[in-house]
C-alpha cells in the first residue's frame, strides 16, 4: 500500500499545536492545560504501546495470542461499563451483566463477519480480527453503559410507580416495560444517529483512514457500511441483552422490586 510514512518530526509538529493550545488555556486561566497535556501524553504512550503489541501480534500470528488480546479487551471494556454506572448492581452482577452481554454480542458479530463475510485466511487473521473487534467492543460498551445506567437510575427514581404497578397485579415485565424501553432508546440512539449522519455530517474514521492508506473510495465505503451494520447489530443486541438481564435482576422470584441490589457507584 502506498502510505506516506510519518517521521517523529511530523508528529512533533502536530504536538506543537496541542502545546500551543495548552499554553493559551493556561494564560486565560481556564484550568484545562494540565489535563490537555496529560491526555496528550497518554495518547502517545498508549497508542505506541498498542502499536508494538499489534506489530508483535501480526508477526507471530497465532490463534491463542489473538484470543488473549480479545480477552484483555473484553475485560477492560467490562470494567469501563461498571465505571460509568451511577447506581450499579451489588457484587459480581455489576461486572457480569455488562461483560456477558458484550461478550455474546460483540464476539458473535465479529466472528460472523470474519468467517461468513470477509473471510480472511485464517479467519482469525489479526489484521482483520483485532480492529473489527475493537470497533465493535468500543461501541457496544458505550451502548450497554448508557442503557444500564438509564435502567438503574430510572428504576431508582420511579420506584413508587413500579411498585404501584406491581400492587395492581402487573407482572414484573409489565411494571418495568416503560423504563426498559427508555433504556434501550438511550443505548441505541448514538449508533442510530451515527448511521443517519454518516457521509453527510461526518466522514467515519475507519473509512477516512482506509482512503488515506490508498484504498479506492468505493472499497473503503463498502467496508464502512459493513462495519456500521456490525456495530449496530452488536450494540443493539448487546444493549437489549444487558437491559433484559439487568431488569430481571431488579426483581426477585416473588416479583418484588429489589432496589437493595443496587448501590451508589
Amino acid at each position, binding site marked *: 500500500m502506498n502510505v506516506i510514512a510519518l517521521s517523529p518530526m511530523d508528529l512533533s509538529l502536530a504536538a506543537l499545536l496541542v502545546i500551543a493550545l495548552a499554553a493559551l488555556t493556561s494564560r486565560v486561566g481556564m484550568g484545562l492545560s494540565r489535563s490537555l497535556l496529560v491526555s496528550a501524553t497518554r495518547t502517545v504512550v498508549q497508542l505506541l504501546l498498542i502499536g508494538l503489541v499489534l506489530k508483535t501480534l501480526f508477526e507471530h500470528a497465532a490463534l491463542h495470542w489473538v484470543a488473549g488480546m480479545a480477552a484483555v479487551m473484553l475485560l477492560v471494556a467490562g470494567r469501563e461499563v461498571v465505571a460509568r454506572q451511577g447506581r450499579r448492581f451489588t457484587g459480581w452482577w455489576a461486572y457480569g451483566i455488562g461483560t456477558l452481554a458484550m461478550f455474546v454480542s460483540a464476539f458473535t458479530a465479529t466472528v460472523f463477519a470474519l468467517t461468513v463475510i470477509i473471510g480472511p485466511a485464517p479467519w482469525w487473521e489479526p489484521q482483520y480480527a483485532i480492529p473489527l473487534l475493537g470497533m465493535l467492543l468500543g461501541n457496544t460498551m458505550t451502548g450497554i453503559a448508557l442503557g444500564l445506567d438509564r435502567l438503574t437510575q430510572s428504576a431508582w427514581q*420511579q420506584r*413508587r*410507580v413500579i*411498585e*404501584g*404497578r*406491581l*400492587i*395492581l*397485579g*402487573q*407482572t*414484573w415485565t409489565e411494571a418495568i416495560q*416503560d423504563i426498559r424501553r427508555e433504556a434501550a432508546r438511550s443505548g441505541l440512539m448514538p449508533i442510530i444517529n451515527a448511521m443517519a449522519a454518516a457521509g453527510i455530517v461526518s466522514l467515519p474514521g475507519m473509512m477516512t483512514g482506509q482512503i488515506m492508506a490508498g484504498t479506492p473510495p468505493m472499497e473503503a465505503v463498502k467496508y464502512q457500511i459493513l462495519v456500521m451494520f456490525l456495530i449496530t447489530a452488536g450494540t443493539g443486541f448487546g444493549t437489549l441483552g444487558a437491559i433484559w438481564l439487568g431488569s430481571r435482576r431488579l426483581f*426477585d*422470584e*416473588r*416479583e*418484588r*422490586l429489589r432496589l437493595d441490589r443496587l448501590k451508589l457507584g
Partner: protein
Amino acid sequence: MNEFRTPERHPAPVLMDDSPDTPLLLEIQQLRTPQIGPLDLSLHAGEVVQVAGPSGAGKSLLLRAITDLDRNEGQIRLEGHPRHTFSGAGWRRRVGYLPADPAWWADTVGEHLQSGDEHWLEALGFTPDVRTWTVDRLSSGERQRLALVRVLQNRPRVLLLDEPTANLDPDNTRTMERLIRDYLRESDAAALWVSHDADQRSRLGGRLFTMENGRLTESNG
C-alpha cells in the same frame, strides 16, 4: 383445608376473639420482617379488621409484607392456599393493597383503569368522562377515590387499605365506606383497614388491633 394435619395433634384454632362466624379467608401466621412481627392475624369473609397505632409503628410495612412487596417470612394462606402457590402478580391481584399515596404513571385516568365498572365510578361521584381527565389535574381526594376503583377492578378477595379516606371530606368519606362495605358483602371479601380516625373506627365496627413497635395487639372495643 389442612388435609395434611391430623385433628388430634393440631386442633383447629379455637377462636377466643369475636371473629365472625364466616369462613376463614386470610390466615397469617408468624409473619415477620426485620421491622415487624412476628404476628398472627386472620380475616374472615365479609369482615373488616381495623388497625390503629402511632405513625412509624409499622402499619404500612405490615400491609406491604402481606401483599408481598417487601421480603418477609411466615405463612400466609388465602382460602387455604399457601401464598407461594400463587405468582407474585397473581397474589397481588387477589390481595389488593391500596397505599396511602397511590402512584399514577400515565397521562390520563383511563389508562390506569380497566374498561367497565362504571357503577363504581358513578357511586363515587364521577361521570364517565373521568377517563379522559389528565392525572395532573386530579385533587388528592379524587386520586384517592379513583385509586379505590382501580384496585377494586381486580376483584380482590382481601383489601388492604392504608387510610383510604385521609384526604376526603365527610360526605365522600361516608360514600367510600359504604362502597367498600357493599363490595365486601357482595364478594364475600374481607378488608384490613388502617385508620387514624376514631369516629371512622366506631362507624366501621368489627375487630380492632393496635400496632406498636411492629407488634399487633387486639384491643377491646
